[in-house]
């Protein structure tokens, strides 16, 4: 077994994800199977392989220098706040975080 129920619980907590008891167990089993399968990567010796941290080669990337610092209008706050579950313009309201 590669992953325990406690592991799934801990990881779901890191991801701020409420999982039900049955989800915990189902995911544990399924993820265990996936990790078992992923273990086949250990067949390969990658000691001298550089990890592929980006897709494009250096000669394919866009101009790597910084763009001009141009001011463009960005008057989008009212429209964006309209999408918020609990807006109080110009703020997003959330449950109280700091106790007095």
């Amino acid at each position, binding site marked *: 077994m590669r992953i325990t129920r406690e592991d799934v619980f801990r990881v779901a907590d890191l991801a701020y994800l*409420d999982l039900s008891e049955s989800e915990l167990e189902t995911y544990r089993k399924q993820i265990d199977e996936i990790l078992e399968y992923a273990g086949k990567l250990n067949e390969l010796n990658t000691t001298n392989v550089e990890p592929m941290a980006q897709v494009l080669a250096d000669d394919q990337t866009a101009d790597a220098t910084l763009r001009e610092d141009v001011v463009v209008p960005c008057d989008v706050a009212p429209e964006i706040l309209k999408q918020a579950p609990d807006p109080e313009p110009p703020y997003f309201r959330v449950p109280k975080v700091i106790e007095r």
Partner: protein
Amino acid sequence: MMTTNWTIDGVKDALTGKKISARELASDYYKRIDARNPELNAYLTLSQDRAFAQAERVDALVAAGKPLPPFAGVPIAVKDVISTRGVRTTCGSKILENYIPPYDATAVQRLEAAGAVILGKTNCDEFAMGSSNENSAYGPVRNPEAPDRVPGGSSGGSAAAVAAGLAVVSLGTDTGGSIRQPGSFCGIPAMMPSYGRVSRYGLIAFASSLDRIGPFAKNVHDIATVLQIIAGRDANDSTSTTAPVPDYRAEADKPVKGLRIGIPKEYFGAGMDPEVRKKVEAGIELYRKLGCEVREIRMPHTDYAIAVYYIIATAEASSNLARYDGVRYGLRVDGDSLLSMYRKTRGAGFGTEVKRRIVLGTYVLSAGYYDAYYLKGQKVRALIAQDFRDAFTKVDAIVTPTSPVPAFKLGERTGDPLQMYLADIYTVTGSLAGVPGISVPCGKICGKLPVGLQIFGPPFGEGRVLQLAQAFEQAGGAAL
């Protein structure tokens, strides 16, 4: 007038010949959508107001005798993970059920500026995570070719809409095969451009080093026409390249005689449906007849691609999906503290597959497991990309099946995620390497279930891919 099988050129001829107006054409498509969508479930949201306003602008140009832009009046569909200003964009998820983007994706903006009429948003697996469209929170899509079967995924709605004549062309997204596989299952051409070729601005992120926007169409010529519009540098996506955009239709028209085609042995192994094999082998034979030189090649790390893909894609997803927290947009489920609000919102808003991938992705990035899984995955990803570079020193393109199996029955594979993942074996390799790929129809099993032939080209070799795809289509590949 029968408009079901219209192409971009067909629309142009009809509009300039005043056989139909853009408004009538849009109405015609909406009538057909009303008739077929209850069964197919390809569209989640229709954007009539926006579509008719655009159609009227096109009709005004026609009336004034002004030159028409390349997409004038062409009815298109857009996958619901691509942002459309003022038009609901759900990503197939309950967490974005009522989300209305305040801006357009660059690909959408460019197509509309070229005259396209956006009919609506198409169904997909939640956040593009799936290979059958069964992970949508809004129900599965049915395959127009075989309604008891899946259309493929994750861009199932975009594929089904074009295949059923509910749009002339559509946009999908491909992270591990999500354009090419549904194209193959629904029997239409479908293309994933090179990473960096098409701006991802406005594409709601799943896995940022893999996600790409690309077209579905009735023929390869239309694929080239869409790509022409959406390709090219965009200041809003720093990974979009300044590499010049060639004339794709001219590239597609070039003869293929003498081109070297590589057939990787690793793509014809166990797990492949024998009927799919027969069709793809007939497809390779067709290339021989067209004067191409067919060579067997080796791509030794192919067998590791699924493991690498499901580590890297889920790791990136766990990070990208952290933004759904109930604060700025989307669903909020109240809790007695900020953290409990986050947990409840995400627990209730995300579906089964998305939560599974967030857990897996968080795990492979977590302390103690990062080196064993994520870093190892990135190293093997480099080896897979090297396989492609090595191959392209010997051949001009690589030809493989798109999927080891044809469209399967609804519900047949939902119980076992690993088995579902393994069916992505032939598409994830090109996703990891960043190369362009297309799926073109390669006959039908028993005259019913479409098979797709996949063509990979070198990075930014879209022209070569289109050239081979069009030659295949014109030589009767779809009827093999």
